[in-house]
């Protein structure tokens, strides 16, 4: 798998050129429970790192999604719109949420790699 990075808000990002694909981690989908709806960002929106871009809803909880990097939204996953369960069954694959064209690629350095994220999860208990 190409270099996956994680934020402390349990989002992952995988880069392809200057476009990053973003979703939520397996841990996050488990904590949320069955996903019923995802409020996606608008295509074309320009956002700073840490900005709220949408909301993931399960039956009994709602969690904001923050973008781990700054940039412009270039795509959202229509498949998830039709079938939100993809976020639970394949959070790192078919359950991706949106794609962003990075304006500051150096921000990736501040995110955790898989090992660091795994350690972070252990610390959460």
């Amino acid at each position: 798998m190409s270099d996956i990075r994680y934020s402390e808000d349990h989002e992952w990002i995988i880069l392809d050129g200057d476009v990053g694909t973003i979703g939520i981690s397996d841990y996050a989908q488990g904590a949320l429970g069955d996903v019923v709806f995802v409020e996606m960002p608008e295509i074309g929106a320009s956002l700073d790192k840490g900005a709220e871009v949408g909301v993931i809803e399960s039956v009994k909880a709602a969690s904001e999604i923050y973008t781990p990097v700054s940039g412009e939204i270039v795509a959202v996953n229509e498949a998830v719109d039709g079938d939100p369960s993809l976020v639970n069954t394949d959070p790192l694959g078919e359950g991706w949420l949106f794609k962003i064209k990075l304006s500051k690629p150096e921000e990736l350095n501040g995110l955790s790699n898989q090992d660091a994220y795994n350690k972070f999860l252990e610390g959460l208990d």
Partner: protein
Amino acid sequence: MRYLPLTDHDRQDMLASIGASSIDDLFVDVPEGLLQSGPLDLPRHQSEMAVERAMEALAKQNRSAGEGPFFLGAGGYRHHIPATVKHLISRGEFLTAYTPYQPEISQGTLQVLFEFQSQVVRLTGMEVANASMYDGSTACAEAVLMARRISKKKKVIVSGGLHPQYADVIRTMTRFTDDDVNFQAPTPHIDDDALIAVLDDQTSCVVVQNPDVFGNVRDLTSLAEAAHAVGALLIATVTEIVSLGAIRSPGEMGADIVVGEGQSIGNALSFGGPYLGLFATRLRYVRQMPGRLCGETVDSDGKRGFVLTLSTREQHIRREKATSNICTNSGLCALAFSIHLSLLGEKGLRQMAHINHMRAVQLVDALGQIEGVEVLNDTFFNEVTIRVPGDARELVNRLAELGILAGVSGGRLFDSLTDMADLIILAATETTTDEDIHALASALREALS
């Protein structure tokens, strides 16, 4: 005391098992000197008989609708409620049940809510309805806030035919937002052209009432088209829900959100509350809709059941990002509405509405013959506005002293607006008799001569 089951013996036993020497030990965190040492300065407890007498004495000081000719409307209507309704809602399993948070033991409440939502959808001609709000006026204000969330625009246009107290609630609920609310001046004449003239692409929504507070009935279609052309939503308000048994629904005419007051079906006048807010909209807006929602599903044996759903819109999950802060709805009033409407059915509602309209036609015929009285409506369902010589409020009070509750005066409803001061709004329903109309007409004729 009849509502307190613990005996002094129980109390002693329980304190002993807790290891407390007196009940005040359990109030240990109350700041020094602030725990009351004796009862506050209010009457002591009384027997059921004594309380009944005291409350009866207060009730007797009120002139109730059935005591004589009664023509008040303007947002609260006197209809006959079948005895079955009151008996069924007083069943303890309905009266003393709670919000159905544990659906397995609340299928009674939940199926009622699902049926209620389905009835409201059909009445209003819309696609989805919530499980009720406090009343028509707060439902109307919530619709304005919802339109803002959908359109992301700030300009609101409010028709001069909207009930002025509903307009006041919109004023209050938008006081601390940056909505730009344009209230058209109240007028007893249909003002839809004036509304269309102020519509522009900054408009979030137009709020209109049909039949309006003066009783006028109009076609909302061209207003809906004009609103949609500039990306605005049409919010239609119905204060007399029985009217939907006779006139075209707001949904059919193009409304995006329909709000209403359900009191007329199943619920007593009750001096203005508790009432029943109805709220319906298009499916595509459902995630922006406030209030509880009941949905159909299945249990682990595949059996059909109902649950509260789409709860992430609500305060208990979304907290500061909720669509509304509403928690409690008007559950028992919604049940009464639903029972009455299931007794009526398609045929009965249409019949009831027809009788209401015919009684209003008779009222208008009688009023039209009185020297000095001018009926202002071309169209109406069960409510009309008349112009009288002199101060209408004073006239209404004089007639009240004669035992006739003649309607709502412009002065009472519109405060200091001088061009409303000679108007009276009157409603007739299936409870109105020939004698009532005759008595009103005679008294009016007498008073104006």
